[in-house]
């Protein structure tokens, strides 16, 4: 058969220049209809109007390290507000000379996250690594051993507080969320209704009302003489809040497990506890890993709310900087800077969860 095919007459003839290469791409993707061509022109015009002034403001006319006075004289961005106050914005009241410790801790955290990204690294060792890593971070941040001076949690501020509240919030909320999800699917009416009331009530109110509760109501709940510091109280509020959302995500995972799995477990003679621990939860929790990362992202963004009850997170340290008369009026630049920080964190986590989704599906 092969021999019958003549040496192609088309061999050596190139495809028309209008369907391949740059021109072909432009024809296919930018100008494939009259409407699209007009749209492309309109967008290009809008970009032409907006991009050059933006570049002039952010880069050309900008000052990178100057005093606030010099900044007032120019009409560009004053990035000095960030560079001159960088350490305060990032670490707040953490003692100045000890700030290498949060830097090292965040380094460890990023390292751990990068290591976790590889699906092939998911085994028992990863759990040990995380436990060890969290222990080391805790020791580094708090001190008190190995000649490190003690830094009370009340002094942890800026990005440390943001990370502490969101990471610890998710970790502590997870077991509670799983219990609530199991409770919601339980056949026992009392347990089911307690879980439903809790989940729906928490999901129906804004986080800020829980934070208010933690800051103004919680002290009333404690016996006389016992006080709990404000950070821990906010942490409790965030945990209670996140748990309800985790419960709904886990419930979705539980619903995704086929009935046959329960029946098979039952026919093997496993009781409820063993069925859940050995058969159902390992499968259900695997399904819900990507949406759980989504909850971590929301928790990370939501911790910014603690600024409203006066905790010194990243947002509050920025506001304190901006309240300084020297740097007043440069809020746009400062907010853009922390927006970039938040974006970097959330965006990499988003991509992580998308990768996971793709890998776990196959």
């Amino acid at each position, binding site marked *: 058969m092969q021999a019958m095919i003549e040496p192609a007459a088309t061999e050596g003839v190139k495809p028309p220049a209008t369907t391949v290469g740059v021109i072909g791409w432009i024809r296919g993707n930018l100008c494939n209809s009259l409407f699209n061509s007009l749209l492309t022109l309109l967008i290009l015009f809008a970009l032409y109007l907006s991009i050059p002034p933006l570049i002039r403001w952010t880069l050309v006319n900008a000052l990178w390290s100057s005093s606030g006075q010099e900044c007032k004289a120019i009409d560009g961005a004053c990035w000095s507000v960030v560079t001159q106050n960088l350490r305060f914005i990032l670490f707040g009241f953490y003692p100045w000379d000890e700030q290498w410790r949060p830097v090292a801790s965040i380094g460890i955290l990023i390292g751990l996250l990068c290591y976790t990204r590889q699906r092939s690294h998911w085994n028992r060792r990863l759990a040990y690594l995380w436990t060890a890593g969290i222990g080391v971070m805790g020791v580094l941040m708090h001190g008190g051993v190995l000649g490190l001076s003690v830094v009370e949690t009340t002094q942890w501020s800026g990005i440390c507080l943001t990370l502490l509240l969101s990471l610890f919030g998710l970790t502590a909320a997870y077991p509670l969320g799983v219990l609530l999800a199991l409770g919601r699917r339980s056949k026992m009416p009392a347990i089911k209704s307690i879980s439903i009331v809790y989940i729906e009530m928490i999901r129906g109110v*804004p986080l800020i009302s829980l934070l208010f509760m933690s800051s103004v109501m919680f002290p009333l709940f404690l016996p*006389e003489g016992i006080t709990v510091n404000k950070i821990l109280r906010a942490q409790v509020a965030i945990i209670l809040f996140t748990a309800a959302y985790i419960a709904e995500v886990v419930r979705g995972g539980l619903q995704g497990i086929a009935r046959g799995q329960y029946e098979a477990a039952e026919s093997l003679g496993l009781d409820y506890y063993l069925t859940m621990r050995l058969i159902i939860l390992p499968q259900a929790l695997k399904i819900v890993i990507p949406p759980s990362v989504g909850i971590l992202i929301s928790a990370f963004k939501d911790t910014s709310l603690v600024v409203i009850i006066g905790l010194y997170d990243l*947002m509050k340290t920025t*506001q304190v900087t901006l309240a300084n008369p020297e740097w007043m009026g440069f809020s746009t630049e400062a907010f853009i800077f922390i927006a970039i920080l938040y974006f970097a964190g959330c965006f990499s986590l988003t991509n992580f969860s998308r990768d996971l989704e793709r890998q776990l599906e196959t």
Partner: protein
Amino acid sequence: MARLPETQRIPFWHDPSKRALIYQALALGLVFVLGYYLFAITQANLRRQSIATGFSFIEREAGFEIGEPLISYSSADTYARALLVGVLNTLKVSLTGMILTLILGTLVGIARLSSNWLLSRLAGAYIEVLQNIPVLLQLYFWYSVFHDSLPGPRQSLNPVPGFFLNNRGFYFPLPLAHPAYLRMGIALVVAGLLISTLHRWARRRQDQTGQIFPIWSVGSGLVIGLPALAWLLSGAPTDMDVPRLTGFNFEGGLSVSPEFAALLLGLVLYTSAFVAEVVRAGIQAISRGQTEAALSVGLKPSQVLTLIILPQALRVIIPPLTSQMLNLTKNSSLAVAIGYPDLVSVANTTINQTGQAIEGVAIIMVVYLWFSLGTSAFMNWYNKRMALVER
């Protein structure tokens, strides 16, 4: 079945149904003990700090001013009225926000799927950037832009005659009161009624004869035409109430405070990014075969969208859309951070003045729970109406 001998009967702790009873009793007992314990301690604490309890405070005079109330309010009014003003402000920003979010989100979601590379990339960047920045930060950002970067009233920006932008607010001209506008409103209602009757008639005719009535063009003609006719017949009034600079600020026209504008803009931009993703996912969930099949039976592209794609996509879209609308309502509570007098902000002031934290937080929670339940009830009803009718 024969009764088992006494020795072989299952002990009650191995009987699943009895065990379930015990577990439930334990759980309920735990909740009650915890509740009672908290209640007792709180009572003791309140007595010791001599904080009043109960909701009698809402009858007392509030004594604080609220900017931009929707109903008449002064500092001599009661806390109850102050809280009502807060609730109305929350509703105002949530409802306006929802409508704008739905429009903007749908547009961006469709743009994300556009075959125009530039447009779809721009929409993608919009979605990624706005989703991944905390909404509170966006609120602060817009507030600082409106409050710090705009000039004072005397140097107001005046992009179009009659429109003024300054750091005290945005001012728009409003048509002067005239009976024509009431008549236009009535004409609009009449047009709506006509369209719904027409729609029913057209559907019946299509069922019987197969003829399609151009309901869209006739409907839009009615909606625009009837009010325009009413306006012309009442003498075509064109007088506008243009804002004027008097003393230190503008008077007349419609004014929007920078707080409200920042809150609305922040909420709409943030939530619309999520809505866009929901819309995109919903449209992509409809397989290409549906479009091809519809085209092959001879439907026009516009009919493919309205008759085939949208009804199916809406079914996928509505549940996640509900939760986004609820998120918007809940996030409107962040108004307290930029000083827009919403419910949380008013309740916060109330708590600070009366010291009755429990009642204040309870009011916030109950109102938001009602909003949430109301929105989900409505969306569930709508969802049921749209749901697939299995034959």
